[in-house]
């Protein structure tokens, strides 16, 4: 059983949970994800592995409620269990494979948006433990939606905050801060890692392209199996069509076709889809189909 050993509220609608899954805890590396199924009739929901503890056999997930299934996940309490948890899935972050000298020679900036701050945290922590210090930009709607600020400040060289309403840090978007750092603060970066909503990753990538800074993004496409079997997660990266669950989830942000990826993400949600689904039901009724 995949028992929840700890649950904390990080921000409105964002919960952190430690889940007992010893096999995953042992194998996990930064950048990977897992899939949760809450109950017998539930969907398979992908979530980033935000941290892992081999001794205790637990993995940490941070979930934002955006719909029915994430609501079900967040409704679980300490002591409850998930029906299925499978992982770690996807490839580990590129930097896990790099030599320490290589890493130390690079200036790395992380850009985290909303719940995306959670997966950024273990990467920064891992690098910090290797003696590599990095800068971090965290963006969110307002002060109360900023998560892991203090924890991040303890391990990153600099943490910059951007909020839409200016209630904390710079008023504006993460890209406002990014541009300011480069244009006015004399910062130079070799690599930017952006994790957050697709739209944020798109604009970070557009910004860094101007300055020719290599950019890595972590895509949260639709998924079903997460093992390369269905193709629901496919994305266009440069000339190629790749599967996020096995080839990713991290890709070169300058090559990802974000517009297509954002459009595909709403395939089962958009007004168009709902309309069509409703039409389907109506036509079902007219042909007396039993459901």
């Amino acid at each position, binding site marked *: 059983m995949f028992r929840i050993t700890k649950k904390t509220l990080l921000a409105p609608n964002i919960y952190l949970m430690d889940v007992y899954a010893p096999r995953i805890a042992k194998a996990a590396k930064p950048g990977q994800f897992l899939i949760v199924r809450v109950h017998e009739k539930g*969907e398979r929901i992908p979530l980033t592995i935000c941290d892992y503890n081999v001794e205790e056999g637990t993995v940490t997930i941070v979930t934002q409620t955006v719909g029915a299934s994430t609501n079900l996940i967040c409704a679980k309490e300490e002591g409850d269990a998930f029906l299925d948890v499978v992982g770690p899935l996807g490839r580990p972050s590129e930097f896990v494979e790099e030599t320490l000298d290589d890493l130390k020679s690079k200036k790395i900036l992380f850009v985290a948006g909303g719940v995306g701050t959670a997966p950024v945290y273990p990467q920064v922590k891992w690098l910090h433990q290797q003696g590599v210090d990095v800068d971090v930009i965290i963006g969110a709607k307002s002060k109360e939606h900023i998560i892991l600020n203090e924890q991040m400040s303890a391990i990153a060289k600099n943490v910059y905050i951007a909020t839409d309403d200016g209630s904390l840090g710079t008023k504006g978007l993460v890209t406002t801060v990014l541009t300011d750092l480069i244009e006015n603060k004399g910062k130079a970066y070799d690599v930017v890692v952006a994790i957050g909503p697709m739209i944020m990753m798109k604009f970070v990538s557009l910004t860094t392209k101007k300055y020719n800074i290599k950019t890595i993004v972590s895509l949260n496409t639709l998924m079903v199996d997460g*093992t390369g079997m269905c193709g629901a997660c496919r994305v266009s990266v440069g000339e190629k069509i790749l599967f996020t669950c096995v080839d990713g989830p991290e890709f070169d942000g300058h090559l990802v076709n974000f517009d297509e990826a954002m459009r595909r993400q709403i395939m089962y949600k958009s007004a168009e889809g709902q309309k069509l689904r409703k039409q*389907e039901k109506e036509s079902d009724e007219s042909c007396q189909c039993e459901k």
Partner: protein
Amino acid sequence: MANKIPRIPVREQDPNIRRTNFEEVSYGYNSEEAMLEATRCLNCKKPKCVTACPVSINIPAFIQEIAKGNFVDAAKVIAADSSLPAVCGRVCPQESQCEGDCILGVKSEPVAIGKLERFIGDYANENQLNLAEVAAPNGFKVAIIGSGPAGLACATDLAKIGYEVKIFEALHKAGGVLEYGIPEFRLPKEKVVKAEIDNVRRLGVKIETDVVIGRTVTIDELINEEGYHAVFVGSGAGLPKFMDIPGENLNGVVSANEFLTRTNLMKAYDESYDTPIFVGSNVVVVGGGNVAMDAARTAARLGANVTVVYRRSKTELPARVEEVHHAEEEGIVFKLLTNPTEIIGDEKGWVKAIKCIKMDLGEPDASGRRRPIEVPNSEFEVKTDVVIMSLGTSPNPLISTTTPGLNLNKWQCIIADEKGQTTREGVFAGGDAVTGAATVILAMGAGRVAAKSIDEYIKDKYQN
């Protein structure tokens, strides 16, 4: 002789009713029908049907028992060679295997071996017969990767002779394609798949779901840390192919695997389940195999008007004759000698049509089938909301890339000899992972062959 009786027809759900539900199409024989059909078998001395069955079930022997009304004994005969009779009786391409070589087929119709096997399989499951005998534990552990027919068959044979066997399955449910691919209306999940898997469990086989070998744990770790003496890889061929034509990433284009996984494994056709599915009013399925038929018939049941587009002619359709026939009865339209060239989207990026070109058959190609060639200037559009790509699958590289010494051929299939031995000591493989997409019974056959090799390998290595 008794074979004067014509083959007993099998009762089926009416096409107009069944295209609105997910219940099984074929009802199968009842005991009277089965016993009557069984009397048709000549009990041949050199039964050609047996040689044509990839797992060599003693067909005349079990049929004789049916004729006498000894259903339990019939089940025992089958159990000696197959752990999945209720599955194989339903989905084997019998017309090209056992029944294809039945002597009666020369002058009239072959014995309905598949339907009889299904009858016994169902009888055994309904009466919870406990048939297999299990030897005392021999102290050796074998890990099986994948719970499809190959893995289940390998596990069954090894458990019977005393091995401690554990199956590791990546998905949350056991069964492989039987669970996620083949639809409910051809292969009921609770009544048949689960029942047969429970029989395998009853032999002492453990199944751990939610473990992706190569990610959660590697083959090396299974051998070095978890103490397995040998490993069997039955991971199937699940990686879907796409056509590489413009528009393939539009909303509404899905692989048959995605479409079928949503309906079968995730039960999207049942509204009480959370996983959504998108069908629209018109669906085009590209491809002509069993998988394409399953996708088409599933889409029809979800309320769509369905067209199958296939680039060769009807005689080349790779799907089973019975499935094509069922699909036609259910109102699926076939556009043959037609190949898609582009998928066209609306201004919001949803599919609105598929552009196709007419094909002609030219000279035979390497596979012996006449190669389709495009007819110049014959392009036309078919209006559709959804396109389901059913162009075949290949083995997933997850295991090979994480197992040093496990080599692949140029089709990405694991290299294994006729005994199931791979290029890596102690690691055996079989089923679709080795052959590419094939059939349930071939996968089972390969699993059984590998079980024998694994037994020899372990005895050789540890008991001498």
